[in-house]
């Protein structure tokens, strides 16, 4: 039983090691900043700008991470878990988008007023839940911190009546900064390695 646990721990650590490059953080931070800029300037181009880097995730991983720490392919179950987290996130964001575009009429006037006042807090809670889920499933512990960050920033922002764009952008900037710091640390710790050859 204890050996079983050790192997699971090893698997988690390996998964964490593969994501120590900060690339996920940089992309998430960028997305949140894009969302904040969209709120500031009311321009959907910023929203597109925020989501655009997702397309570069795999190429960047291959260009930056793989030459340094090597390539690893995890079992399909890990990919399914990660895919489910991403899918849940997309469904939530899309659901909220559709709801705010067309749905509020089905709610009572009081509920509509509440949503109008606290929709960002609700968004913060949903984002926090997504991060919590992702952290629990992937074992990447800093995602717990991001969940707490979203909850804190969005609660404080709503409570203190700070302009939403400010605390949304600040949240994004913080995650972006963590990502960049991790990337710099990763690049220093793992200089480019030559590919090995077993039969050389």
């Amino acid at each position, binding site marked *: 039983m204890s050996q079983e646990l050790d*192997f699971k721990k090893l698997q988690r650590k*390996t998964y964490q090691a593969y994501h120590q490059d900060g690339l996920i953080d940089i992309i998430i931070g960028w997305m949140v900043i894009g969302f904040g800029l969209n709120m500031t300037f009311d321009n959907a181009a910023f929203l597109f700008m925020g989501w655009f880097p997702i397309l570069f995730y795999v190429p960047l991983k291959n260009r930056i991470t793989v030459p340094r720490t090597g390539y*690893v392919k995890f079992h399909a179950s890990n990919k399914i878990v990660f895919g489910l987290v991403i899918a849940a996130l997309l469904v939530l964001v899309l659901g909220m988008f559709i709801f705010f575009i067309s749905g509020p009429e089905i709610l009572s006037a009081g509920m509509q007023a509440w949503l109008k006042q606290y929709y960002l807090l609700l968004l913060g809670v949903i984002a926090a839940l997504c991060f919590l889920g992702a952290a629990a499933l992937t074992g990447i512990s800093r995602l717990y911190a991001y969940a707490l960050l979203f909850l804190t920033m969005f609660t404080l922002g709503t409570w203190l009546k700070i302009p939403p764009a400010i605390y949304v952008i600040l949240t994004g900037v913080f995650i972006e900064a963590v990502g960049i710091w991790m990337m710099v640390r990763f690049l220093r710790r793992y200089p480019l*390695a030559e590919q090995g050859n077993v039969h050389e």
Partner: protein
Amino acid sequence: MSELDSSQEELQPISDIDPLIHAPTRLKIMAYLSIVESADFTFLMRQTGLTRGNLSVNLRKLEQAGYVNITKEFVDRIPRTLIRLTEDGRQAIQTYRENMQTVLNDLLGS
């Protein structure tokens, strides 16, 4: 004679431990390969902390035993040595863990 037979029987679980996997360096390699679908040479080197030469020698032994499958491919014109456990290798590490569990249980139980 019968007492000797009996003591050998008692030690049988230790004899069942696969010496090829039991060596720490190869055990590390097998452990990492058992938790992933496949990995390249650099990844194994980083994770196990083995030197290039040491890893290469031990991988060759595991390949000769039929526990790992080593393939070479080019990604963006860069060579990549991809290593994965074979079905025999997965079975071997599973059996090794079970045997070790038995031995440890016997030792701790006595």
